[in-house]
């Protein structure tokens, strides 16, 4: 798997949202896109997903230009976007074409994996924000994506739920070697999860710096090294 962005520029009615983005995401890597609100993070992620094709430059998946959404690329939004008229179970198997026993077993395995056992028959209105996002993650995972794009998936959740779900992502990555590209405006989140942090500037969104985090997995959120990097990033962002 490789995801390559080359001189990507996206303009909305004459306003340049992101400009000249060059980025190569490696297989199994966890990349965080970090920047202030409105700097073009979602715009960049949507072009990577194939949902938005009106850009200049190229986005290639395995060296072929992206022409639309593909099943190898999953996307998770800030709101879970569970379909309100389907139960948790129906939502999670939404992307699957067949309903063979084997598929159903797979769906059930993922329900258990994300911790939603017993909630299968509930409708989204009965779920908390955290449970909804777990269901959204399961819905993507059952389709066996190679890349998971995440657009501020936990920013609407309370702090503790957020920490739990961050660990869930790491667990998924360790098990399935899923490549992750995650948009966030939370520096601590990026420091805890990322192999690489791409810092974006605002208006237009351009890559300001790319920081490799060489610290091994199983990070301690409060470690001195990470705090040092945090200072560095804050300086880059001028705050």
């Amino acid at each position: 798997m490789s995801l390559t962005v080359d001189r990507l520029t996206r303009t909305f009615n004459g306003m340049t949202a992101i400009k000249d983005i060059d980025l190569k995401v490696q297989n199994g890597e966890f990349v965080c896109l970090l920047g202030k609100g409105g700097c073009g993070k979602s715009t960049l992620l949507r072009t990577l997903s194939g949902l938005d094709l009106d850009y200049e430059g190229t986005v290639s998946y395995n060296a072929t230009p992206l022409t639309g959404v593909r099943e190898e690329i999953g996307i998770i939004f800030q709101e879970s976007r569970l379909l309100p008229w389907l139960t948790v179970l129906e939502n999670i198997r939404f992307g699957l074409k067949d309903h063979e026993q084997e598929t159903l077993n797979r769906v059930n395995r993922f329900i258990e994996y994300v911790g939603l056992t017993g909630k299968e028959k509930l409708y989204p209105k009965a779920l908390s924000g955290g449970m909804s996002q777990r269901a959204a993650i399961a819905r993507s995972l059952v389709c066996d994506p190679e890349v998971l794009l995440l657009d501020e998936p936990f920013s609407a959740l309370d702090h503790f739920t957020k920490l739990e779900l961050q660990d869930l992502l790491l667990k998924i990555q360790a098990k399935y070697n899923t490549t992750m590209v995650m948009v966030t405006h939370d520096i601590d989140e990026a420091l805890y999860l990322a192999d690489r942090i791409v810092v974006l500037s605002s208006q237009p969104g351009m890559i300001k710096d790319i920081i490799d985090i060489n610290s091994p997995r199983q990070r301690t959120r409060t470690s001195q090294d990470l705090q040092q990097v945090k200072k560095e990033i804050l300086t880059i962002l001028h705050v």
Partner: protein
Amino acid sequence: MAKEVNQSIYPTIQLNKIGVTPLIKRLMISSVFPVIIILIWEVLSQIGVFESYQLPAPSAVLFKGIALYQSGELLPHIVATFTRVTIGFVFGTGAAVILSVLVGFWPLLEKFIDPTIQALRQIPSLAWVPLFILWMGIGETSKVTMIAVGVFFPVYLNLLAGIVTVDRKWLEVGKVFGLSKRSQITKIILPAVLPSFFTGIRTGLGLGFMFVVAAELMGASEGLGYLLVLGQNTLQPDTILVSIILFAIIGKVTDGGLKLVEQRLLHWQDTEIRGRSK
């Protein structure tokens, strides 16, 4: 994980303790006001504040209704009106569904047809009456057509609005999971549009009853609207009131039926108000 508790913003009256179901409880609460009004009306009629040839007492209206029922006159009137509304409703809704789907899914048709429909909508539908009678006579066809026209507009407008405003968020979910155009329609647009459809048909049914009255006032030999004319011509306000009350009851019951189906199909909606007495 934080658990969300849906707490009602409405105060609940503690009738559960005496063991009544929520439905009966709701009926009881909602009938307090009309019962008081009727009692006051009855008393005022009995002591002669209202003249009986203008406003008969509730008891007199009730006896009139029973008499009409026992003579076998009442049921055919009810059946006639109900049948007209049902047929008109089915045709009006059918036409509205077909047209709004065509217009909603083919932008070219929208440009082509929708402006005309929007213009026709501006005509108060009752203005069609003379033309329909001229074309189709005073028979059933013109009546049913009028009712269908009345039902058509709210269904068309609501459904079309629902179709063209389906949230891009849901459409994107369909896209992300590689749905075909057809699955996109059946799995996303259809369920997303269902709430607007129900708003449309419930409004449409209400208008259907309005139009059946208009049609029957215009000329009919049976129907509850005919009973209104009869009461007027024979100076019998009790007959008029029987008809009015039956309209209220039938309207309420049919709307209640639709509401029940709506609740069954839309139970997934996250709205606090729905399901409460309305």
